[in-house]
């Protein structure tokens, strides 16, 4: 538990380009998908960051990069002051005990042929944790009960298909918890679940940061579902973070036009509060051809001439709040 107060996960200029074939049959020029295109982010111990954006903005790729499931093209990631950007298999395996991931689809992310006990026991076997099976059973039980699968005995011998979506997601979380990680990267953990049971999974993650001091990177397209429990919100667009700030700063005083639009379309469960929605036309552009200047300008409702030419830098609005928009830079 060193470095208690400072940043313990630091991401600097992280990039991931995927090859996307040649521009034409006879051309030598390689095209690239700029999935993650220069991301800076730091995470504190037991902090919850919501990473928000539409599909194709690179948020899931960023999660995979942090997990080491993809290899970054450029940039640097440090964890507890150690460079973890490129690791060999052994080092990576050790790191995985500390950084764990929860996937989007609880129907797909559990092996249908394994029982719940086998699924949650597996990480311990892989890492050779626990001298005896009874010691491992003890840890499995604790992880399950911490994940709300109580009493554990009821679930141990069941198969995933016998559980509901919410329960399956709890199993996925228990299988991550059993390694006692310090960071959990949750990639859309509730988007496949009914609204009525989303709260139970979100509340569970919110509890874990308190009971186990786990930091959470919560990747989602729906700001509404995480707003209330994230400490900070980072909004991503086409591979970059375009606005970051504390939850209240971003929700109540959004500065980037993209953030404003995203917030305006979150459904409000009250028909008396039907409001003007800023509906952006089209979808996130193809990340092969990143627009010139500000990458958001083709869809931006308030773009002006300069936006086509100049790529705005992140500008500080407060100690914690930054956004990348020429309108802000201009006002400064």
């Amino acid at each position, binding site marked *: 538990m060193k470095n208690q107060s400072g940043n313990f996960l630091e991401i600097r200029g992280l990039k991931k380009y995927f090859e996307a074939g040649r521009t034409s049959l006879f051309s030598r020029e390689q095209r690239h998908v700029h999935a993650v295109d220069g991301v800076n982010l730091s995470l504190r111990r037991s902090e919850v960051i919501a990473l928000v954006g539409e599909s194709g903005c690179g948020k899931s790729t960023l999660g995979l990069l942090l997990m080491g499931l993809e290899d970054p093209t450029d940039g640097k990631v440090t964890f507890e002051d150690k460079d973890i950007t490129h690791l060999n298999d052994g080092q990576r395996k050790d790191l*995985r005990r500390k950084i764990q991931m929860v996937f989007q689809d609880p129907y797909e992310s559990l*092996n249908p042929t394994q029982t719940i006990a086998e699924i949650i026991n597996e*990480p311990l076997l892989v890492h050779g944790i626990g001298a005896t099976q009874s010691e491992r059973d003890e840890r499995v039980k604790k992880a399950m009960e911490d994940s709300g699968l109580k009493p554990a005995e009821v679930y141990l011998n069941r198969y995933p298909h*016998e559980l509901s979506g919410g329960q399956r997601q709890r199993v996925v979380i228990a299988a991550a918890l059993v390694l006692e990680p310090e960071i959990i990267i949750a990639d859309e953990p509730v988007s496949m679940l009914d609204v009525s049971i989303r709260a139970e999974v979100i509340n569970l993650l919110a509890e874990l940061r308190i009971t186990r001091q786990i930091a959470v990177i919560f990747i989602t397209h729906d700001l*509404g579902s995480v707003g209330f429990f994230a400490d900070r919100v980072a909004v991503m667009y086409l591979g970059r973070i375009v606005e970051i700030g504390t939850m209240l700063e971003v929700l109540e005083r959004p500065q980037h036009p993209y953030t404003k639009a995203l*917030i305006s379309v979150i*459904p*409000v*469960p009250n*028909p008396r509060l039907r409001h003007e929605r800023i509906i952006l036309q089209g979808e996130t552009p193809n990340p092969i051809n990143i627009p010139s200047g500000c990458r958001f300008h083709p869809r931006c409702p308030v773009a002006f001439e300069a936006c086509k030419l100049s790529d705005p830098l992140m500008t500080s609005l407060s100690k914690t709040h930054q956004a990348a928009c020429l309108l802000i830079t201009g006002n400064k």
Partner: protein
Amino acid sequence: MQTALQKDAPETQPLSWGATFWINFSKNVAGVIGFWMLVLVIVVSIFAPVLTPYEQSSSTSVGIEDIYQPPSAEHWFGTDDAGQDVFTNFIFGARISLLVGFFAAFISIFIGGIFGLVAGFFGGRWENFLMRFTDIMLVIPELPLLVVIVALTRPSLMNIIFVIGILGWTTTARVVRSQTLAVKSRKFVLRARAIGAGRIHILARHIMPLVLPILVVQAVLAISLAILNESALSFIGLGDPSALSWGQMLNFAFGRGAMSAGAWWALVVPGFGIVWVVLSLTLLGQGLEQVLNPRLDTHHLMPGRPVVQKEAGQVIQKDALLEVQNLSIHYIKKGKAPARAVENISFTLKQGELIGLVGESGCGKTTLMLSLLKLLPAAGQIVHGKVFYLGKDLTAMNEAEINEVRWSRISIVFQGAMNALNPVRTVGDQIAEAILKHDPGYPREKLAARVSELLDLVGISAGQKENFPHQYSGGMRQRAMIAMALACNPQVVIADEPTTALDVMIQAQILELLDSLRKKLGLAVIFVTHDLGVVAELCDRVLVMYGGVTAEYADVDVIYNTPKHPYTQELLKAFPDLTKPKKKLTSIPGYPPPLDNLPVGCRFSPRCPAAFDRCHTEEPALHVLADGHSASCHLVEVAKG
């Protein structure tokens, strides 16, 4: 399934995969027949010496009178060219044929399995090399090659087994590779990597268990192929002369004048053996495949039977476009309690109205929607109630009549419909097809213009109609599906979770589109969803369903601001509201009841925070609270006094 956990009764212990497999397999007629046919052959070949008084090839003294004896009490299947008992040779021949089949299949499954697994799992250069090699092996015609190799290596049983095995692995390799690739791309493999599992671990614990069933099916088919190949080789004289297999029997009989002697038994008997074994293996393989790759059998759409009711016609509201009256739908399966998926649901839809149908998964909303167009799965039956469309009862219509209404009057946008477009035809083509299917006389010269018009209506430029579905994004595909639903100018569109899999921004676009269509075309929309936020943004009236019944039915403002049913209240508490960012979300404990095992009393009582004694014994009626507001809860009745 969920409630089994709530009760945690010991008898609900889950069955292991093996047990489930045997139960399912025993229900598969073809598989069971094939299995027992094969068992019979194996038993006969094992007990061959006991079953016949003769010894194999025991022709110590052959007289001319012994040759080609027709079937008799002494020789059931007659005798062959050497005066031997055909029955004896037949049951001993089964040993040879099965031996060749099993061993050769083992070799080819072993090689093919390893090739397929390695190529599929490791990919890259390994895959390139192995699969190119497989491709080359696959184009070489098998039988001529077998003939050449067997001829060169001298025909012995070992050589034949080896050669058939070595040449028979290619299909297995390809099938195993594609299954490995499919399993590898599944999320649980990625999760295993995230846990830190190595390749060997993933291969053994995650890939193999899912490739194994395919391998079993392949093995069964490989055995039958090997037996056929051995018979063919023996028949053309390349078999092992010392091992009298069925093919060899055929060869000898054919080559030594059985035909001219009229001794049909010498040919028919071994031929029958080959057909019997190959048939049994094919049936078994087919059965195993059906059991191991279960396809969903709930989607065979069948027209529901018209409901005959003696009730007097109810009063229909004047301006109602669609009126559902006391509709009940049960899923009836033999030997099981009926699943009461929908019970006693009533609602009205006026022109231009948008009604939200809200509930958790498994509360009967999709069943209700499918029943409106009589698209229920075979087991689903409308057991009570009526659906009036402009005064005509849809439930009493026959298939031809309902076809007039389907799509042209009432159309559906299904959940995940954007994945239902045909990938090899242009979007414009598919919309044109939808128009022609319901109006075959539509003037062809106007068709292109109509398609453009429809696409324009949903915000897709006409220039994109020549594009294929893969060139569209998810949101655009959903728009195209809406255009298709509008193709015949329907008055009612049922939208079943049309935005569930989409991003918030795309969801907002689709909602805006539905709203504008309703204003522009006077469309009435039934919006089915589990998302209360979407309903608040869009709908005029809301029907909240729980466990197949109406929990609450009211104007949208009432539902959100003065809901009376505890379920509605709890649902609202579970929904994040950004206008109150610090509000703690609460989820409703437990899960919706299974529709074939509903709780006694109020269906919501096991999860209801306000439940009292009466709720656990008596099912509440739907109480009308005010004009257009009703709720089914005992508390409402108490409050009413």
